[in-house]
């Protein structure tokens, strides 16, 4: 053990000693305080497992068409790819190596050995990556109907894959290498191609259910690579710059705070702000027109400046077609609106900024509603067009006349746009309202419902379409959405 390493251990011991000296809650008391959370987690976890097992049993009986069987076979791989993409995305977002701003200020500026200081974090990240990837892959394998031993080996392969990705991301973080970004795009692209293959009913035999011997071989290969990546990551820990370590550590408390207050829009604000800060500067585009047309032109510029949002939105169109291929019937309309909402909400950034900051809204010599309509026009139009692009899938799923399908798809687009506006213009939980006592402390009454914002409007607009996917149903849905949109945009 090096002297520097021993210094870090001694320092940690001292900090632990100080902290223990200030403890005012016993473990039993902490458990008593948190019992609701623990109990809820156990109940919800059991429910989730039960739902997955029931879905597996149900799918075995109902999924008999060849296209459905092919899609089901591919489900495990798609979930696995999704898990890998998710692990890598989170690893890139947070570092994956990070330290708190306090550690960055007080310890990283000293001659202490940086490897010893952050190696615990590497182990923690590797375990977290393995657990996250394994959980998602296990769900996919179970839903795919793989035999139990195959589910086990499949889960093991992706757990090792999660460790491998954390190791690779750490090396890239230390060496400031862009390869990990390319890997993210490759994983996302592979997932998208897989979805397209399922949607057009062209699943290759390689995506069919894997066999146990092949998975064992894969586990040996991926596991070996994971060990090598972890060793390389450990050796590179000393190379990680302080700015890279503190960046994720500064982000994490903000994200945790937003999640703790169930304020998802705040979470979004934090991520958007970080994204643009990292970009630093842009190619200047001069304005056009005056009054509201100047605002509309800026929305065009903004969309051109964020092509990744448009690419993601266009790529997400595969999901409605996938739902149609799987024969979900009218329920695919819910897939359309949910997909559009999740993929398209990022188009309305300016509306979010104006809702959050009254001072910015005051800069415009126009009624607040006129400013909001101007900011909504271009992205709202894109979302309605996105709905229209799902028309063939809607027609395939619900049948009937083409006119009905077109009207239903357009109404879906309007539902997506209105739900996104509802989400983006939501206000944070109001702590001036009466508070309810809970084991987690006092919470305002509006807190629990804040996570439902956007989804409430989505359901309101989708239900008429589910009941009657015709021109009449579309008219009812559009009328409801027009009323909601008018209220949201016009409120002070």
């Amino acid at each position, binding site marked *: 053990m090096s002297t520097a390493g021993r210094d870090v251990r001694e320092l940690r011991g001292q900090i632990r000693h100080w902290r223990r000296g200030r403890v005012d809650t016993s473990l039993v008391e902490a458990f008593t305080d948190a019992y609701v959370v623990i109990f809820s987690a156990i109940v919800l976890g059991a429910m989730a497992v039960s739902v997955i097992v029931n879905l597996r049993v149900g799918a075995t009986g109902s999924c008999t068409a060849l296209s459905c069987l092919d899609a089901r076979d591919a489900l495990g791989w798609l979930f696995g790819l999704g898990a890998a993409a998710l692990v890598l995305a989170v690893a890139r977002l947070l570092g994956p190596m990070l330290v708190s701003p306090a550690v960055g200020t007080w310890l990283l500026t000293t001659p202490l050995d940086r490897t010893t200081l952050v190696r615990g974090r590497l182990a923690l990240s590797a375990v977290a990556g393995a657990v996250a990837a394994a959980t998602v892959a296990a769900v996919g394998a179970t839903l795919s109907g793989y035999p139990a031993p195959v589910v086990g080996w499949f889960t093991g392969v992706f757990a090792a894959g999660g460790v491998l990705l954390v190791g690779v991301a750490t090396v890239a973080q230390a060496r400031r290498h862009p390869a990990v970004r390319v890997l993210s795009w490759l994983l996302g692209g592979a997932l998208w191609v897989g979805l397209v293959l399922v949607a057009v009913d062209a699943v290759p035999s390689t995506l069919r259910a894997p066999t146990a011997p092949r998975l064992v071989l894969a586990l040996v290969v991926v596991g070996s690579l994971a060990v090598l990546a972890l060793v390389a990551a450990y050796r590179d820990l000393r190379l990680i710059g302080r700015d890279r370590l503190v960046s994720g550590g500064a982000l994490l408390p903000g994200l945790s705070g937003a999640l703790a207050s169930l304020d998802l829009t705040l979470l979004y604000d934090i991520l*958007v*702000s970080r*994204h*643009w*800060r990292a*970009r*630093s*500067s*842009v*190619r*200047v*585009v*001069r*304005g*056009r*027109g*005056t*009054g*509201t047309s*100047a*605002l509309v032109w*800026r929305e065009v*510029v*903004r969309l051109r*400046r*964020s092509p990744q949002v448009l690419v993601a939105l266009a790529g997400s169109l595969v999901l409605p077609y996938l739902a149609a291929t799987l024969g979900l019937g009218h329920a695919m309309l819910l897939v359309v609106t949910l997909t559009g909402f999740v993929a398209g909400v990022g188009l309305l*950034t*300016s509306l979010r*900024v104006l809702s*959050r*900051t*009254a*001072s*910015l809204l*005051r*800069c*415009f*010599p*126009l*009624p*607040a509603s006129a400013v909001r309509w101007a900011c909504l026009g271009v992205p709202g139009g894109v979302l309605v067009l996105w709905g229209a692009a799902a028309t063939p899938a809607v027609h395939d799923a619900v049948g009937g006349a083409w006119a009905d399908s077109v009207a239903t798809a357009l109404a879906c687009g309007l539902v997506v746009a209105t739900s996104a506006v509802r989400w983006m213009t939501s206000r944070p939980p109001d702590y001036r309202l009466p508070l309810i006592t809970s084991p987690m402390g006092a919470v305002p009454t509006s807190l629990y419902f804040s996570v439902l914002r956007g989804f409430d409007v989505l359901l309101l607009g989708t239900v008429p379409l589910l009941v009657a996917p015709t021109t009449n149903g579309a008219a009812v849905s559009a009328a409801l959405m027009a009323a909601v949109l008018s209220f949201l945009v016009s409120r*002070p």
Partner: protein
Amino acid sequence: MSRSGRPSRTPPLLRVRALTKRFGDVEVLSGVDLTVTAGKALALRGRNGAGKSTLLRCVTGVDAPTSGSVELDGEPVDERSVSVRRDLAIVLDDMDFFPDLSVIEHLDLFARAHGVEDADRVVDEVLEEVRLTPQAAQLPGTLSSGQRRRLALASAFVRPRRLLVLDEPEARLDQAGLVWLTERLLREKAAGLGILLASHDPDLVAAVADRVHDLDRPE
């Protein structure tokens, strides 16, 4: 310079009558009366917590007073009113920006939204004046606090206005920035604009203000 607090004979641009603001049981402002006329500057003075920012927020219609009235050109100030937004240029301490628009694009957007003719030229001039030309393509999130303050001030000067309301405009400005701000505000007065500012800088107040309203009260 008159420090009497008495209004001049020119019809006031802004008139505040008996304005009171309470937060629960705490009375922050009590019966404030003041006027601002065109071409004159009124400075608000007071210790931290004296209610300067609260008064400015009430004057600009951002917060509603508990009682009393605020009139701009004889009409009650309503922040939602388009004419109020057109005439009032406000720089408060909670100014925020679009994260994905550059410095110059912000000014360009504000100028065009206000219908400024020849917006490109006006924006370039103001940008040069606030010494942000080198940062024209930068996004606001990457600016220093002083640069963000200058951008906020620039947003007030790039558009038509009749009354400037500034909350501690000197905050986070360097020495050169303070000199520029003083000269700019004197030019604004000379051009016939009314100015209401809250400031802790005695030099700025001495140079710009025609009258001073003291919000300090005995403890």
